[in-house]
Each structure stands twice: as C-alpha cells, then as structure tokens.
C-alpha cells in the first residue's frame, strides 16, 4: 500500500466542485472587502480622504490607519515568522509599493471595488532604493538564517586554496524576484461569533494562521477557529497570513458581520512576499583533473527594512561537493521592495542555479564531461560538518540519469550538435534539498464500525496529503483504503507544522505511524485483558492489524468487535513526530535528499527561441509514500526550474519601485506545451536515520537544480553563457552572431 500510485482520494471532490476553498464558503449577510494598496514605495501617508468612499452605495466601512484598532507587534523572538503578529495598515508608514493602506467593505464586491477607487490618498514620498546592484556596498550580516542554519561557514583556507588552484572559475550570477502565484489567490472569510471568530483561510499552517491572527488582534488563540481543508496551492505564499486575512478579521470585528477578502492576482505580487533577488558569486578552484580544491559561494540578497528575511541560498553548497578549502557567506541589502518570503524551495532553488552553473563552467574550462566532474567530487562525508551522510545516492542518480537520458549523445564542444536550424544542447545539474522534520501531532480513531479516521490540522495544498495519510493509515491498521477517512485543516484537530519546506509529508506520516502504533497497543491491551476476546492472554506487543482484524499469531478478532465491546463510542490515539532539532540523528548525520537533472534544449540559430525538448529527473528522496503524487510534485518542480531558467522574473520600475509585470500575462510561467517530454523517476530508498519510516520530504526537490540543467543545456547548444536570469531572447540573440546561419539553400 505505501508507495503505491494510488489516485488522489480527494480528486473526485475537486473535479466535481465539492472541495470548497476559503473564498467559496457561503455565509448569510456576508460583506466584501477590497484592499487598497500604496502607490509609492517609501514614505508616509499625508492625508487620506475616505468621505466619498464612505458615501458610495453599499459601503459599510472604510478601514485605514486612522481608524483601525491597535494591533500586536511582531515578536522577533519567535523562531518562525509565520506565527508572529502581522500588523496591517497600522501606521502611515509605507514600506514598499503595493503596501496595504486600507480596506473598503461593502454589500457587494462590485460596490467595494467601485468605492475603493474613491479613496484619495496624498503621500509624502521619500527616495527609495530598488536595485540590488547599486546597493551591494551596503550589504550587512543577517541576524540569522531560517531553521538555525549558520550565516557563514568556513573550512580550511579558501583564499590560499583558490590562489593555488590550476583552474579557477570566478563568476557572478544575478537572479530576479520570483513569486509563488498559486491558483487559489490569498483569501479569507472571517465570521464573528460573539467575541470569537471562525476564519476560513487558505493557509499552509493552520496553527500559524491562528496564532498570527490572535497575536495581531491581541486576543487568545483559542478564540479563533481556523478552517482550511482545501488549499489551492501554496508554494510558500500561505505559510503566513497577509493583509487579506488580517483586514477581513478586523472588519468582521468592527462590523460584527462576516467579511470576505481576496487579493487580486496583481495584488498578490504587491502584498505577498517574494523570493528575494540575489547576486551570487561562486568561486571554484580545481586541479586539471576537475577535483575541487577550493569552493566559495557568497550571496548578496535583498531584504525589506520592515522585516529581515535571509534566503539561505548557499546552504546546499555546504554539503554537495568535496573540497578541502571552502566557505559560504550570506549578506543582506535593504531595498524598498516588498518583504522576502519563502518561495518554492527557499535557498536551494536560487543557490543551485548559481553553483551548478559554475560547475558547468568548470567542466567546460577543463574539457571534462560535467557528469564526470560531479562524480569526481563526490564526498565521502559531509565536507563541512564532518559527519556521515545518512543516505545520499547522488552518484546513482547521475549514472542512471545519464544512461536513461542518452547523455552519451552530448558533445562536449558547445554548438556542435544541430538539427537544421535548431542548435541542440544537453545540460546536467545535481539536486539537493535539506530534509526538515518538524514536530507534528496526528490523531487516529477507530469508529465502532471498524473504520478509521485520521485527524490533524495538517494541510493539503494540492500535494496529496489526504492520499498519503489514507494509504499509510490503511497499511498500518490493516484496512482497505475506502475504510479510512482523513480530516485535515481545522484548528480543533491535533496540531501540526502544516505543509511547507518539504516537511509536511515526513512529519505527518511519522506522527500518524506513531499514532497507529499507540492505537494498536491500546486495542491489544484491551483484547488481551478481556476474557471474552479470542486474544485474551496474548502479548499485546506481538499483535498486528490485518484485514480489519487484530492478529496475534494464529489468533485474531475483528477490530470492530474489540472496539464495540471496550470502546462503544470509538477509540482514539495520538502520535507525534520529533522535530529534527530534538532528534540526535540530525546532529550525527547529514540528512538530505538528492537527485540529478538532465535537460535537452533546442535553440533557433536565427531567432534565439529556446525550446526545452526533454527533461529527466532522477531522485533519491528516501522512501516513496505514493509514486503518483511524488512524481507529480517532482515534475511540477522541474517545470518551475525551467521557468526560472527561461521565463520567470519580476522587474521593479527603477523610478517608482513598482513591479511592472504583475500578472500571469507578463510574469511568465511554463505551461504544459512548453515541455514536450518530462519525466521523474526514483532510485529505491529508505533513510532509516531520517525516521523509522524511512521517509523524507520531496515537495521541493524537483525545482532544486533543474533551472541550472536547462541553463547549462542552453550553453551546450550555443556556447553562450548567460549569467543574469532568466535567459531571454535579448540576452542570447546578440551572442549568437558567431554561429553560422542556416545558409545551405541560400543563393
């Protein structure tokens, strides 16, 4: 059962419209809120005139900094920002273009939209800074990286090692801002119930949403009930609540009416945080055989003055390749651009694009196959922490991928493979992602009829949580899948760390595994001590669940009979997963996931049009819980990586700080038609150091390194190295002049 490619158990509900998302809940007397956003990047609101808006048809309230109640402040001592208060429109200060400055609430959405345009705001604008390259001399050391990673690391003497290297690569890679943009926009329906609130919100972490709302309103979390059973994609943008949620709750509180607020697609860009822009310097020193002797990865990263966020860009560099002399460094530059947040594999997604591009540059410089280069630099132990790897298998991924992809057809010399007008190139890159495991509690209940219910405030953000927990419970309890029901996404359920950072599946499945163990023990003890049971007198620890029965050797009894006799209302048990910070294995081993990406691109020699004709990912993410949902996540991530390489990137207007491409017409993401042939496969794995289930997170592994594979394929096709992403036509075309045009049939 575990690992089978079971169809999504929530699929029928989703395709028949039975899965209800936050904004879709219907409530009598609901009011609609429209967020107003700032049109300057830095400064203050001087005057705000809401008189016309307040008189507009249907308007019930206009919230601004002048009338909004006092809110809690961010508690920087909380280790995860998602739990902190999120004060909104609480002052006249503007911190970035698109900062929320007000909310118009009306009887209909159209009335609220119309009235929002009647609010007149005068600003006192200050000069802002929006260009990372112009401010890199202002870089400073961040207070911390997420999850407690060290800000800087050093082993050996990098500078000496680099100076002495026979071959040196020293390059800068420039990455823009990236956005999450899930299908379901950030949205909230807040319903006052006396002094309490019911909050329907699309969130990745139910407990964080509740805590953040409570801290902002300065009330006890128990007074807020969060409901989020279906989430239409997160990608990091729903790890924390944003203006739409806080303003909906504040308006509901003020008006004592249900209030719905959703961000528009363009407002998501302005209000919800971005993956920060970065400038990354990678230095590789190697012998002529390709063996690295020195490795440095330094990242300069944007942050907003309002709240520091240090994208852990160089963390994956610390364990990927062997090199005796090495260093990593993170520095921040404050810009008047919206806050940085976790977006689609924070850290690795950006960092591996630079590191794996540099590795490709090294391979080219010494005329070595880039797969072979990576194999030659495989470390025996974690090269910075000096601990063993728990389960790595990167070599297998590279070798299997190369064989399956037909890597031998690649020419080491760029621009050497051609099909008519198309220049063909192959690229490879390694993938790695940290394996975070978080404290999570899951409950499991056996009903009187013997069916099971899994209970957790864990979320399913489209990744397949309902399905994997159903499979796992069915396996552990010896039940068919249709006898297991999973309830998620409510704050009255056992508390989890939700979905994000690839921690959702390993944390919740481990907790469920432990819950099932506890439940089995309870039932076994009940049967063993019950003279009416065929299992009377058996050893409780020697029992298993099988086919709806509790079994001890040759003896068995239907679980429903044990429950009916001893627990007529049903029986419930809980299990916990241990956070990686409290599990000694995570200190004693280097625990991560790995993989290898292969890409084939075709570049039109005349127009520089790039087509990705094939992508293959081979991954080692530990034990697979569901082959179908795992593959879906991985190919989704690989597609994101293709977008990073060729399409994605948001550009601020240097005059105003406004992002100029704020919708999906101009912020380009790949679609199905952009990739002709994509596949993800696994090498069999089981990481017993990660947890007893052998499971690790894989949600973000697919994006890690895939952008570099595509970029490296573009270089192999053309001989042109673009280091400022995305690789767009205007950057590539002028450099293609040296390549002979297709003149065969021209006079």
């Amino acid at each position, binding site marked *: 059962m575990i690992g089978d490619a079971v169809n999504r158990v929530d699929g029928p509900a989703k395709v028949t419209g039975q899965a209800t998302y936050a904004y879709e809940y219907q409530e009598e007397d609901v009011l609609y809120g429209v967020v107003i956003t700032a049109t300057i990047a830095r400064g203050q609101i001087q005057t705000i005139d809401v008189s016309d808006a307040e008189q507009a048809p249907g308007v019930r309230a206009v919230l601004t900094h002048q009338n909004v109640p006092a809110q809690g402040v961010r508690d920087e001592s909380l280790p995860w920002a998602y739990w902190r208060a999120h004060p909104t429109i609480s002052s006249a200060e503007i911190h970035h273009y698109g900062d929320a400055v007000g909310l118009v609430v009306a009887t209909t959405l159209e009335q609220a939209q119309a009235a929002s345009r009647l609010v007149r705001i005068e600003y006192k604008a200050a000069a802002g800074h929006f260009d990372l390259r112009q401010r890199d001399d202002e870089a400073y050391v961040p207070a911390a990286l997420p999850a407690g990673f060290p800000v800087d690391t050093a082993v050996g003497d990098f500078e000496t090692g680099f100076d002495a290297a026979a071959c040196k690569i020293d390059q800068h890679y420039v990455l823009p801002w990236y956005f999450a943009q899930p299908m379901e926009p950030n949205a909230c329906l807040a319903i006052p119930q006396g002094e309490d609130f019911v909050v329907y919100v699309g969130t990745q972490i139910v407990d964080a949403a509740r805590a953040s709302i409570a801290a902002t309103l300065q009330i006890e979390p128990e007074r807020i009930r969060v409901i989020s059973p279906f989430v239409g994609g997160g990608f990091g943008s729903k790890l924390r609540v944003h203006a739409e949620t806080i303003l909906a709750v504040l308006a509901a509180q003020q008006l004592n009416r249900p209030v719905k607020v959703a961000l528009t697609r363009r407002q998501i860009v302005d209000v919800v945080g971005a993956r920060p822009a970065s400038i990354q310097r990678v230095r590789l020193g190697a012998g002529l055989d390709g063996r690295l002797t020195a490795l440095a990865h330094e990242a300069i990263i944007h942050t907003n003055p309002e709240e520091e966020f240090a994208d852990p860009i160089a963390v994956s560099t610390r364990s990927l390749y062997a090199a005796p002399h090495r260093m990593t460094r993170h520095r921040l530059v404050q810009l008047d651009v919206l806050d940085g947040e976790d977006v689609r594999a924070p850290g690795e997604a950006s960092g591996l694009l630079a590191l794996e591009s540099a590795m490709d540059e090294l391979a080219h410089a010494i005329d070595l196959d880039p797969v072979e280069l990576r194999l030659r630099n495989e470390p025996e132990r974690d090269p910075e922490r000096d601990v063993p790897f728990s389960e790595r298998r990167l070599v297998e991924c590279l070798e299997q991928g190369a064989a399956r992809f037909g890597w031998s057809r690649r020419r080491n010399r760029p621009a050497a493979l051609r099909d008519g007008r198309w220049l063909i190139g192959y690229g490879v890159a390694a993938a790695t992602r940290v394996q975070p495991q978080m404290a999570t509690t899951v409950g499991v209940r056996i009903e009187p009829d013997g069916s099971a219910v899994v209970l957790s405030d864990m979320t399913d953000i489209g990744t397949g949580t309902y399905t994997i927990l159903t499979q796992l419970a069915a396996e552990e309890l010896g039940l068919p899948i249709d006898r297991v029901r999973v309830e998620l996404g409510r704050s009255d359920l056992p508390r989890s760390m939700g979905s994000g950072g690839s921690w959702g599946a390993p944390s919740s499945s481990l907790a469920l595994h432990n819950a099932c163990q506890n439940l089995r023990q309870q039932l076994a003890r009940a049967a063993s001590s019950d003279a009416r049971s065929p299992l009377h007198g058996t050893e409780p620890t020697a029992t298993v669940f099988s086919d709806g029965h509790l079994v001890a050797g040759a003896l068995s009894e239907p679980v429903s009979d044990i429950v009916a006799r001893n627990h007529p209302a049903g029986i419930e048990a809980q299990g916990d997963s241990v956070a990686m910070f409290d599990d000694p294995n995570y200190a004693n081993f280097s625990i991560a996931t790995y993989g290898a990406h292969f890409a084939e691109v075709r570049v039109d020699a*005349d*127009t520089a049009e790039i087509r990705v004709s094939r992508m293959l990912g081979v991954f080692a993410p530990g034990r697979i819980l569901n082959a179908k949902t795992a593959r879906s996540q991985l190919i989704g991530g690989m597609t994101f990586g293709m977008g990073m390489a060729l399409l994605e990137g948001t550009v601020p207007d240097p005059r105003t700080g406004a992002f100029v491409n704020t919708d999906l017409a101009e912020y380009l993401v790949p679609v199905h038609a952009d990739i002709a042939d994509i596949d993800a496969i696994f090498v069999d794995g089981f990481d017993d150091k990660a947890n007893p289930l052998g499971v690790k997170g894989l949600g973000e592994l697919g994006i890690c390194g895939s952008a570099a594979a595509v970029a490296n394929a573009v270089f192999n096709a053309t001989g042109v190295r673009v280091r400022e992403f995305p690789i767009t*036509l205007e950057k590539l*075309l002028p450099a293609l002049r040296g390549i002979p045009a*297709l*003149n065969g*049939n*021209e*006079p």
Partner: protein
Amino acid sequence: MPSTFQAAADIAMEAAVGRGENDFKIELARNTLRRTLADVVAMADRSVS
C-alpha cells in the same frame, strides 16, 4: 560574402534605429527576414519539383 537573402534583410532594416534595450529586435527582424526568404524559396522549389 553575405547571401542574397542576408543582403536583402540588411537593406530592409537599414533605417531601423535601436534604443539600447531593444537593439536586439533589429537583429531579430533581420534574421527572421533572411530566414523567411530562404523558407519561401525552399517551399517554391519543393512545389516545382
């Protein structure tokens, strides 16, 4: 020695003036014109044969 099609494309784009960041469009137009002329001739050759 530029091809006839290249020469035609060069002449067609002779008066085009770039503005820095859109300079590539002139080259793109030139290349596209040259390629289109070649494609059209190739199509004509195929239809004759």
